């Protein structure tokens, strides 16, 4: 079995993100970037399937600026076999990513594509679903457990109020939730091995995809500052404030 794992380079989860002064986006210059944490879980799951002997090859792909190579190398250090970068300086929306993934899936014919359920920068939660629709494949989103059987997989999904288990025919799409696994660290010797692994670069045009954004960002703004709390004298005052000031009841 071959598994394709797309990984996204995002602002590190520890960084306090700042909005650019002109409201056009967030500051990314000289900001620490890392692999999207949900994608780390996807890489981990694929590598575990390889270690179990279920998968033969784990191909890691990323799309974006040339520095995405570093993100791919991290995944290769975790145990991926080879990488593909679709290099572009364009801003990529989920639909464009899904289309490029389709192009790659047609080239690579994976049996399974494991993605993060969403990226922590735009929180879109769309790419996996769009890609599955474009391919006409089954999808097991928000996975907290993945179980491979003959020619199919069983995916336990995190849903409101519990878990749901679905069975999918292969090839299929899985998107990861936090509880699926705990991703490993890139061990130091493996960082060196990853450097020697194959990493090919393509362009969106090679995949016949037009990445022009379909959406326009009107404005990016900081969330409103939290106001300090106040003490109320009694329940009557609380109810009054909730009714007349906060207007929530």
């Amino acid at each position, binding site marked *: 079995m071959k598994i394709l794992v797309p990984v996204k380079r995002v602002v590190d989860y520890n960084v306090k993100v700042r909005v650019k002064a002109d409201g056009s986006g967030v500051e990314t210059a000289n900001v620490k970037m890392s692999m999207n944490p949900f994608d780390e879980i996807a890489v981990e799951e694929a590598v575990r399937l390889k270690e179990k002997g279920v998968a033969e090859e784990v191909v890691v792909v990323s799309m974006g600026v040339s520095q995405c190579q570093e993100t791919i190398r991290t995944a290769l250090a975790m145990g991926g076999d080879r990488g593909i970068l679709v290099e572009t300086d364009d801003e990529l929306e989920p639909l464009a990513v899904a289309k490029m993934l389709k192009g790659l899936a047609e080239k690579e014919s994976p049996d399974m594509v494991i993605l993060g359920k969403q990226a922590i920068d735009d929180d879109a939660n769309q790419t996996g679903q769009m890609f599955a629709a474009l391919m006409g494949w089954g999808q097991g989103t928000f996975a907290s457990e993945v179980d491979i059987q003959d020619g199919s997989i069983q995916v336990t999904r995190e849903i409101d109020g519990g878990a749901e288990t679905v069975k999918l025919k292969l090839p299929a799409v899985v998107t990861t939730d936090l509880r699926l696994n705990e991703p490993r660290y890139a061990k*130091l010797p493996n960082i060196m091995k990853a450097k020697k692994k194959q990493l090919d670069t393509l362009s969106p045009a090679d995949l016949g995809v037009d990445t022009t954004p379909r959406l326009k960002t009107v404005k990016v703004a900081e969330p409103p500052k939290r106001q300090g709390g106040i003490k109320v004298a009694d329940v009557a005052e609380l109810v009054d404030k909730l009714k007349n000031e906060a207007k929530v009841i």
Partner: protein
Amino acid sequence: MNSPIVNRRDLDFLLYELLDTERLTERERYAEHSRETFDAAIETAHRVAVDYLQPHNRKADLNEPTFDGDKVSTIPEVKEALDVYCDTGLLAAGQDFERGGMQLPATVAQTCTAITKGANVGTFAYVGLTVAATNLILAHGSDEQIQRYTPYMLSGRFFGTMCLTEPQAGSSLGDLRTRAVPQDDGSYRIRGNKVFISGGDHELAENIVHMVLARTPDAPAGVRGISLFIVPKYLVNDDGSLGPRNDVKLAGLIHKMGYRGTTSTMLNFGENDECTGYLVGQPGDGLKCMFHMMNEARIGVGLGAVMLGYGGYLHSLAYARERRQGRAPGEKDPATPQRLLVEHADVRRMLLAQKSYVEGGLALGLYGARLVDDERTHPDAAARANATRQLALLTPVIKSWPSDYCLRANDLAIQILGGYGYTREYPVEQYFRDNRLNPIHEGTHGIQAQDLLGRKVRQEGGTAFDTMVATMRATVDEVNHDGPGSLAGEAEALARALEALEETTRALRAVGETGDTERYLANASDYLDMFGHIVIAWLWLRQAATAAAAQPASDDDRAFYQGKLAACRYFMNVELPKIHHLAALLRRGEDTPLNTDPDWL
């Protein structure tokens, strides 16, 4: 409550903008590396630090190891964290590829260990000692010894210790008494008592490899009679499996002010006269072997002191940005909101002092690590020799200056937190207690001062000293002296300090040449203080010049570089002038301590 360990932006600045660490990849040994592999290793170290070391830092402080007369117990988090540390390959970060290492430059390997120390110095110590013991065997052991021990030490199956100190021999190692008697099979019988041995017993690894200093029966008195021995807790069979228990006995644990996660032990070797040891290197070369590895170990101590200071700085900075107290001086209206602590000039004074100490100290430690890399791998022989000389001169400073000033940084961090800083609910008091060790171990502050003035400054007729001063003076000339970004004032301050240093050193050496060594060294600690401040001022000038020339990529970046310039200005204007006071007392040969009769105290 956890706080950031280090400012990653600062680390990037020091590694890649100030020290140009990426250029090391031009050297053969590091040719397979790139900034990407350096950053990936640092990232792994940081993750292990945040996920496994930092979370139990306080818990280990509150729950010291215990000894029931049979076994030592530590909280389970310690072993779990160390297992992960070893499994990720961090223990072997700087070792050759062939030994399973990552062959990282010392600059990057020291960065990785610095981060893990900042997270939890007590737990880190076990692996830190193991690395030191392994390096000792690799450098001086026989092939057979290297084979028998080091693969298991590098994988973390065995840990290591350094056994120097005895009750009557702390600073004066020449007086140590542990005896080693040769046996027919080539091994030695070891007998003696060691104290303060860190990591001397525990159940964290299968075996413990003690590196023991002892004297053979016919050895001369003093340091030349000291030899180095491997004394394993369990003897090791040819196939690497464990043999019988050796006669090394834990006599008791020592209860300390800080570093509480590390066992501090009193060890009895050969209580039953059955303790086996194996000679490493030549008889009589024990201290020479040890000190060969000391430069790096001392850079490690200095950087450890820096990181504890750094943690306190970042914590007190975050606190000062949140806590409101008081109003602007002159503001009489009690209805106005309280100010943030950071808005008070006096609090910013304490933050700037910390910043100048910890970021200056980090620059110094990494510069020292870079000298290690240059000594080992610079393509030019003259440059290698120069690095060796400079490293020898600076080692006491790299060890001692941060141990002194980053401890002061911890004191200021507590002060900024006020009453809260004094409580155990906040980490700053623990940083202070942990850091208090650093001026004591690996050669006390006073001993380092004597090493600097008594030996290093005079070595090779003062060549290293003269070269160092010339290097610093070159920076004075290189920086921008007019126009925007001018550092003329800062450069001038350093130039005057260098003149004072040269003059003072000349005056002192004249005293030294009279043969009155006692008088020559009477104020050595003040000399170390002066020398250290000047080296730090030099590194601040270099940081400021780099920051002034940089192109900020964002508002945050601009603020970062402004911060470097402000800290440089602070150091030059507020800290550096004190060297002129020290220079004066050194030059006049201040003799009150020298002439004070012990009975008068």
